[in-house]
């Protein structure tokens, strides 16, 4: 997005926020009691309800869409151990499109920065990632599932993945452990089921749970078995545990600079945090809808508030005669509009909570496979929704409020 555009949006939001703060301050400092606003809001309950529900729906759509994007990001952010280093082919944009050789494994495992376990072996795992096109449950057609061929060391390096049903696969057998969340979406994923991919028939022996990480979208099997089933000579990536943070920095530099290897290394958590392509279009859609729907909502709010001003011409005249300033009148109307809108915002946020934690899935743009994530409504997101509602109220009430303040006192009192 062009910088000018971002600046424009940011300054617009800034002005709105400032306006809202000023309104609250003026309203609370002036003597027009807030009770007056609250009572007025409920006297014309029909149009009030329409406005509140309208704004609630706008906020709901915005919050829900953003919560999808947050869900995808959070599942990526949850993934990996900050101590681990992921090594992939230079140029590969995803683990599944990376290829690394056995020769590279031999070179890499003698690097002294790598931690050794009790038996004295280097803590390095060479994984094989493949995609299998498998039938969904019901009439959903087929979708790609990410299969990770993994070594015992690779499992030790990923402690957040737990077995929740059945047992782990045994090395050398065509067995597979599938993610519990994927099991709800694909046919033949119950423990004990079998499915065919390529020339091989795999037996599901257990379910894994990735604790809300990207591993929830994977199925695990034995690395060498995976290479034989999918006829792969090479591995996809290496996962390494360096001895210390300093060793990690050294190791990354050493791998990146080694012309023989042609590999790229980065921290495992860093790699997953960079996977933002899938969430980006959803965020774009949320932004687009927020802008267009709010135009409609602002006009609707304006209509309601103009009618309110029209119906209360006499009241306004009375307020002015009692000695209230024009700015008090503006503030009191703005406050009313903002409160009304925030009521709608609160309603929208409350309704959105119903979906919080609900699991859904889409095609990940990076791994090109089904990725599972949950609607995630964070406090920040709810606050954003409330601010959005308040902004709608502010801009929808500004012109009617100004009109109210500019009514001549005499004509206001004369009005029937």
């Amino acid at each position, binding site marked *: 997005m062009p910088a000018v555009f971002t600046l424009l949006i940011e300054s617009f939001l800034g002005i709105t926020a400032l306006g809202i703060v000023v309104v609250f301050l003026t309203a609370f400092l002036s003597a027009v009691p807030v009770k007056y606003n609250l009572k007025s809001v409920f006297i014309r309950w*029909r*149009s009030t309800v*329409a*406005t509140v*529900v*309208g704004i609630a*729906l*706008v906020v*709901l*759509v915005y919050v829900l*869409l953003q919560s*999808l994007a947050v869900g995808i990001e959070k599942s990526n952010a949850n993934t990996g151990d900050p101590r681990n280093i992921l090594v992939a*082919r230079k*140029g*590969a*944009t*995803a683990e*599944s*499109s990376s*290829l690394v050789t056995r020769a590279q494994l031999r070179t890499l495992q003698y690097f002294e920065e790598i931690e050794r376990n009790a038996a004295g072996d280097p803590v390095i795992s060479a994984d094989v990632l*493949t*995609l*299998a*096109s498998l039938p969904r449950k019901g009439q*959903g*057609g*087929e*979708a*790609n599932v990410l299969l990770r061929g993994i070594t015992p060391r690779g499992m030790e390096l990923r402690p957040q993945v737990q077995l929740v049903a059945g047992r782990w696969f045994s090395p050398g057998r065509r067995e597979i452990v599938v993610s519990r969340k994927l099991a709800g979406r694909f046919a033949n994923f119950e423990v004990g089921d079998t499915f065919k*991919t*390529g*020339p091989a028939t795999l037996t599901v022996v257990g379910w894994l749970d990735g604790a809300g990480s990207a591993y929830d979208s994977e199925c695990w099997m034995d690395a060498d078995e995976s290479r034989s089933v*999918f*006829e792969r000579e090479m591995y996809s990536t290496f996962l390494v545990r360096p001895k210390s943070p300093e060793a990690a920095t050294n190791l990354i530099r050493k791998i990146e600079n080694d012309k023989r290897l*042609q590999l790229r290394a980065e921290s495992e958590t860093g790699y997953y945090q960079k996977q933002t*392509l899938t969430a980006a*279009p959803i965020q774009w859609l949320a932004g687009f*809808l927020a802008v*267009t*729907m709010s*135009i*409609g*909502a602002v*006009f*609707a709010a*304006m*209509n*309601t508030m*103009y*009618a309110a001003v*029209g*119906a209360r011409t006499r009241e306004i005249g009375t307020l002015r005669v009692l000695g209230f300033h024009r700015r008090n009148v503006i503030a009191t109307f703005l406050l009313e509009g903002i409160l009304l809108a925030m009521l709608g915002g609160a309603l929208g946020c409350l309704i959105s909570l119903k979906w919080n934690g609900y699991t*859904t*899935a*889409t*095609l990940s*743009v990076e791994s*090109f496979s*089904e990725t599972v994530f949950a609607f995630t409504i964070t406090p920040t997101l709810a606050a954003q929704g409330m601010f959005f509602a308040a902004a709608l109220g502010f801009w929808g009430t500004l012109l009617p409020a100004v009109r109210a303040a500019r009514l001549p006192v005499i004509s206001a009192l004369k009005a*029937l």
Partner: protein
Amino acid sequence: MTLGGFILKNALRNKRRALLSVVSVGVSLFLFITLQVALRELTLPPEDLGSSLRIIVRNKVSLMSSLPARQLQVIEKIPGIAAVTPFTFFGGLYKGDEKFTSFAQFAVDPARVKDVIVDAKMDAAEYAAWIADRTLCIVGLDTARRYNLKRGDRMQFTGTFYPCDLDLRVAGFYHGTADDRTVFFHHRYLDEALDNPGTVGCWWALAASAEEAVLVTARINAAFANSSAEVRAETERAFQLGFISMWANIKVLIGSICTVVVFTLLLVTVSTMSMAIRERFRELAVLKALGFRRRELLGFILAESFGLSMLGAVLGAGGAWLLYRNLDIQKLANGVFLAFEVTPRMLGMAFAIAALLGILSAIAPALSVARTSVVEGLRTLD
């Protein structure tokens, strides 16, 4: 004053409210149409004559698994096949793109591909030049326009799926297919860069007739059953639809947003309309006292709300239609959207919604007017 004039005067009496109502209906219908167009574009790939004739053969495991090049001899001999070419998705990043390149690059056999993409029109001299030099490529006209490419320009791609980069030169352009964005280059160039692995990504074939296409796919599938590389052959159309079904719940998502938008719109307009009527309750009572009948009053109200919402529809739906017709959507959306076409069906739906809005928002005020007696109506203060 004629009746029509009376209704018009009434509708425009509060010009600001009339304008706000029309614009909020307009904006919402504009949004509705935009979402519908986007949904159609994402879920219904462009269809042309060839898409039901052309067949894509991929590895049964998944698109990411390759196929042995030796399968060519078998596929060629299958009855009903008019032409076939290797068809490998390179998926590189065009220079300057860091994360995502919106047009595809395919490695094909130049001598064979012309018989598969039958819709494509290209200059014979350019085509001959392309066949002759394996470092040349041909570029879809849309992509060429977007990047302002001329013949002889270099196109460099960084490999993401394949451990090699491409350095191609533009031999010429093609147009006339449903999606003129793709770059085609020599499969031999890719083979050499990868040290001749003897594999291809997919096969791309043309069936002799549309009736035979389904039979041909079955024959291809049968030909490689129980071999080391089983295949899935399907028509291009079926392939694209299968691809889209992988997006899973996106369709439901946009569909439900459309519903929410329409509902919000309904709510707001109904409320505004009834506000306008309530404001002149006394006038309506006077009209009633003058001897206008209930159905005539209903007519007044209906005509006004119907007129306003229709005007909104003309503004919103018509505006969307005009805008998307004249906008270079490809450039704006970074190549994600291709045609962004507003279909007559969508326009019809938008107007139907507007009509429904007009009728629904007249019902509540009309009912209360009908129910109230003249005296009560005259007594109301606001």
